């Protein structure tokens, strides 16, 4: 199985649209036949995951540029093409998405007991939207997926959510919409600027393409885009939405214009991440959303923001991304997010309030870490950011599932309602422990790898960044351990908790892949994730920092030894 073979199958289109096809098929089920609907939806979500797996095998990890490229005519008169392609970063996020999609469906088996048909339709549509964002190589296509995804999420929160669901749902929608429409303007401005850039920088374009010599599909796509934009005349405007060509030529946009564009993208992505002070939609959405909604929200949706920074902001607008004016805003915000999220989480434990709120604020803190890694803009920082994106998807999703398990049994999420659960639910307590440790970054678990790389990257960049990040990690350990202690240890004080059943087989089934992944990434990070993301990381760093020389193939080895060494020395 190689890229060529899968490319002929239009594998990316298949992976992207398969969930939507399932949603379409679900429409033909009778809404009363809930068992059939459940079985079908779960089977389909699992199928979507299985179909995405060949990508991992066929993906050429050392090849620069994009793979499995699909490139078709779509709306010629506005330069829009149906272009898809992935690099290693997108690949790991795609597999994470399909996995969490299957898990989310399975976790809803008992949780969702009203309007099941609609629920699974929306869940599958949401998955198509998220996958589309990761595979799109055309700005227009990207934007379509980016927006369309909001609609099913709105319904998932709004129909199956908690008491305050209507408020949370519309708040989620409006916040993210405001961000994305501002981003749309930046996209249009880039689109409009491209012909000038192509006309004045064609020789630099060739130089930029040189490292992709082995990747015909990528170079052809970029050359075609350049040709399309180059055909623009005074009377007949023509341009392209191709994303890689903006990577190539974005750097030539004057710095002041870059900063404006950067700001517009920033609003779109920062709301999604979410960064302080744009984070207020997140706790509301998480607290109200059903478990599956929270899993998807934390596991994938938040990553779209950081993915946006890595795919668009840094490579397209490198000048602005390292400009002091930008960093002076972004880094403090990231640091505030880290500390603020952690402190609030501590506060929620102190007052024994809603567990979901706690996990939601811990997300703000963790995503702040990721942002710090991204803006360290060195190989370790960005590697760490991507690893941590995946880690956060694993551990935070698991924590939401854990809260969901408790909620299904007791219909409350108040920390004060639980204590000593490890006595009645030993399997559950074990899984919770693993995920707590993963979240606080215990060595041999996935969280450690990500946090370590981010810290290293941050220290390399600026000691103070590292200091702040460490503070966040310490606080993170405090609230997670405290939460675990409060709920799992001690005596059972609530009579209702004495007879709580332990995890069912179905519940174990959806925790198991997450636990396995947590260990796998923790023990063998190189094989399971770093090998995939090293090439994209080096590419992003070289985009931002022109003096950075991309290590050639051989250089994979030294970088490979980085993290195990670090593991040992800490």
């Amino acid at each position, binding site marked *: 199985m190689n890229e060529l073979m899968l490319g002929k199958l239009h594998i990316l289109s298949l992976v992207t649209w398969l969930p939507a096809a399932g949603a379409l098929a679900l429409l033909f089920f009778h809404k009363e036949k809930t068992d059939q609907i459940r079985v079908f939806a779960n089977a389909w979500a699992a199928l979507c995951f299985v179909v995405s797996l060949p990508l991992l095998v066929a993906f050429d990890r050392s090849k620069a540029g994009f793979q499995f490229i699909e490139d078709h005519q779509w*709306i*010629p*008169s*506005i330069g829009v093409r149906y272009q898809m392609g992935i690099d290693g970063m997108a690949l790991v996020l795609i597999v994470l998405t399909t996995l969490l999609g299957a898990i989310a469906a399975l976790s809803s088996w008992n949780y969702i007991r009203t309007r099941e048909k*609609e629920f699974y339709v929306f869940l599958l549509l949401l998955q198509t939207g998220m996958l589309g964002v990761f595979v799109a190589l055309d700005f227009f296509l990207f*934007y*379509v997926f980016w*927006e*369309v995804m*909001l*609609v099913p999420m*709105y*319904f998932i929160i*709004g*129909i199956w959510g908690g008491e305050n*669901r*209507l408020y949370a*749902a*519309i708040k989620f*929608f*409006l916040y993210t*919409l*405001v961000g994305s*429409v*501002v981003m*749309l*303007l930046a996209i*249009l*401005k880039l*689109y*409009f*600027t491209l012909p000038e850039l192509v006309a004045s920088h064609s020789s630099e374009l060739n130089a930029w393409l040189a490292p992709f010599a082995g990747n015909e599909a990528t170079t052809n796509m970029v050359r075609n885009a350049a040709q399309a934009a180059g055909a623009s005349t005074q009377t007949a*405007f023509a341009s392209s939405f191709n994303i890689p060509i903006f990577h190539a030529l974005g750097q030539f946009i004057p710095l002041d214009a870059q900063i404006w564009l950067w700001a517009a993208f920033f609003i779109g992505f920062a709301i999604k991440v979410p960064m302080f002070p744009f984070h207020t939609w997140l706790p509301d959405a998480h607290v109200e959303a059903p478990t599956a909604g929270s899993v998807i929200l934390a596991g994938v949706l938040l990553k779209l923001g950081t993915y946006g920074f890595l795919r668009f902001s840094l490579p397209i607008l490198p000048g602005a991304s390292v400009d002091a004016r930008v960093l002076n805003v972004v880094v403090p915000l990231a640091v505030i997010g880290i500390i603020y999220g952690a402190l609030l989480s501590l506060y929620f434990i102190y007052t024994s309030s809603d567990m979901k709120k706690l996990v939601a604020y811990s997300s703000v803190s963790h995503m702040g870490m990721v942002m710090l890694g991204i803006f360290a803009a060195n190989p370790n920082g960005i590697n760490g950011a991507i690893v941590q994106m995946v880690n956060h998807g694993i551990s935070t999703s698991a924590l939401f599932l854990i809260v969901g398990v408790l909620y299904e049994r007791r219909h409350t999420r108040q920390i004060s309602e639980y204590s000593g659960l490890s006595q009645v639910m030993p399997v559950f307590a074990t899984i919770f422990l693993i995920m707590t440790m993963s979240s606080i970054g215990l060595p041999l678990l996935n969280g450690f790898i990500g946090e370590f790389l981010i810290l290293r990257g941050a220290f390399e960049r600026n000691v103070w960044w590292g200091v702040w990040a460490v503070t966040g990690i310490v606080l993170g350990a405090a609230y997670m351990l405290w939460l675990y202690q409060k709920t799992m240890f001690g005596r059972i004080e609530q009579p209702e908790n004495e007879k709580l059943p332990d995890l069912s087989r179905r519940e174990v089934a959806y925790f198991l892949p997450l636990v396995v992944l947590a260990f796998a990434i923790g023990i063998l990070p190189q094989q399971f994730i770093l090998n995939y993301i090293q090439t994209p990381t080096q590419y992003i760093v070289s985009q931002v920092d022109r003096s950075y020389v991309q290590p050639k193939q051989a250089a994979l080895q030294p970088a490979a030894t980085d993290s195990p060494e670090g593991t040992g020395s800490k």
Partner: protein
Amino acid sequence: MPTGITSNELWLIAPELIITLFACLALVVDIVAGRGRGRWTALFCLTGIGFALISTGILYSEHHGSERAAFYRMVAVDDYAIFFKFLFLIAAALTILISVRYLDVERHQSGEFYALIMFAVLGMMFMASGTDLLSLYVSLELMAIAVYVLVGYLRNDRKSNEAAIKYFLLGAFSSGIMLYGISLFYGAAASTNLSDISAAVVELTAEGQPMRYLLLIALVLMAAGMCFKIAAVPFHMWAPDAYEGAPTPVTAFMSVAVKAASFAMFTRIFLDGFGAMRYLPGGLPGWALILGIAAAVTITWGNIAATTQKNVKRLLAYSSIGHAGYLLLGLVAGNRTGYTGILIYLLVYTFMNLGAWTVIIALRREGIAGDEVEDLNGLVHKAPALAVFMLVFLLALAGIPPTAGFIGKYYIFLALIEAGSVESNPWMYALAVLAVLMTAVAIYYYYTIVKAMFLTDSDAKIAVEPTRVQWSVAAAAFVLTIGMGVLPQFFINRSVEAARRFQVYPQRPQAAPTPARSTAPQTGQLRQRDNGTNEN
């Protein structure tokens, strides 16, 4: 200039002649069929529209890419006019289709309703093809008077009467204002023909010309009159009341066809006639500034006022005010992208808005008005297909991809970005930012409807049973709304060729002391634009 009227010229207005014939005969058919047999008249009118569509199609295939002036340059048949004629005819046909059952429920089934729609369409078709201020004005009045009557059609309904009176008084007032503007232009340019005016204003508005202030006043009057017609703030006050009081199919017709016709006329007058006044030299505000402010205020107010509405008809009325603002932005941007944007926006707006109105009309049943937001509660359980259709229409109205509404908004935003870049005018960017932020406000109020349909349970148990016709119209609109969003190329091509006739009017160099030099090429270009494509 031709002498007399030739049969060739009559052939050019064949669709209009067909509509006239059928509109007049419809009144007869109504009498022959007898009371309460309005359906026959409806069918008759639909036949007429069918013939008109066919003849428009023939005209399109014969004159595609060229421009034929007729009747002493009173009307012209070009791609622009034909584009709009298709639009009006289709909108009218759909309106008639969704009216039949509504009038049954209202117990007001009679033929003159359909005849009036035909007359209104006749006015619209001439509004799209008029090239003379007088022919345009007369067509506008023909449309407006028919619509005044339609608004007050439910004569036992006080709301309907009130709406008609309000609409009529303000409409007459605005016509007067516009007529005053026309007279001033005639006084200055000695002609009411748009191309004569466009040639004259270039020199008349040059710095130091005494006439330029008069022309500015005339321009403001024309803009005010047109803004009344498209319900742009601050001349929008009639719209919510008229939309709410009018029979719902008429409201649909007004928000779609009447608005499109007014825009057809607006765009033609301001580009073909007053194009040179987009920017005025010597510190005077041109229409780019005037309309830019109007558009900004319209978008803001239309969208914000809509958020507090509890009645769906009023809500959609305010939303259509907001849409008028977006359309104005296409004109303000003043480039080809913007012109194309106006056309494609109107096209997609027709289908998504008519679709939304069709769903509202389907809710009108015995004993239930169906136009409060509460009446939509739990629609997804009663009529799932209608609810999903409505969701898509609302998403389209808000401009969420991949619906057709996004394509319209895309063009408007791109036009503003383009104008901002090319003219290095930061205000265009500011308008773009305002416009995109207001789409978020729009989502908020559209989602009050979505919330009612999907997230709220209904207490009323009366079933919603759309007729097969209503269902088909909604389904067709649904397919088009999605289809034009996903595969818009065909519709973009039609809009591009329709907009091709308009010139771009850039900022005239401020320090040009001799207007003749800088303007001569402009007037020349105006006539020579079709040189290449005239022969097919």
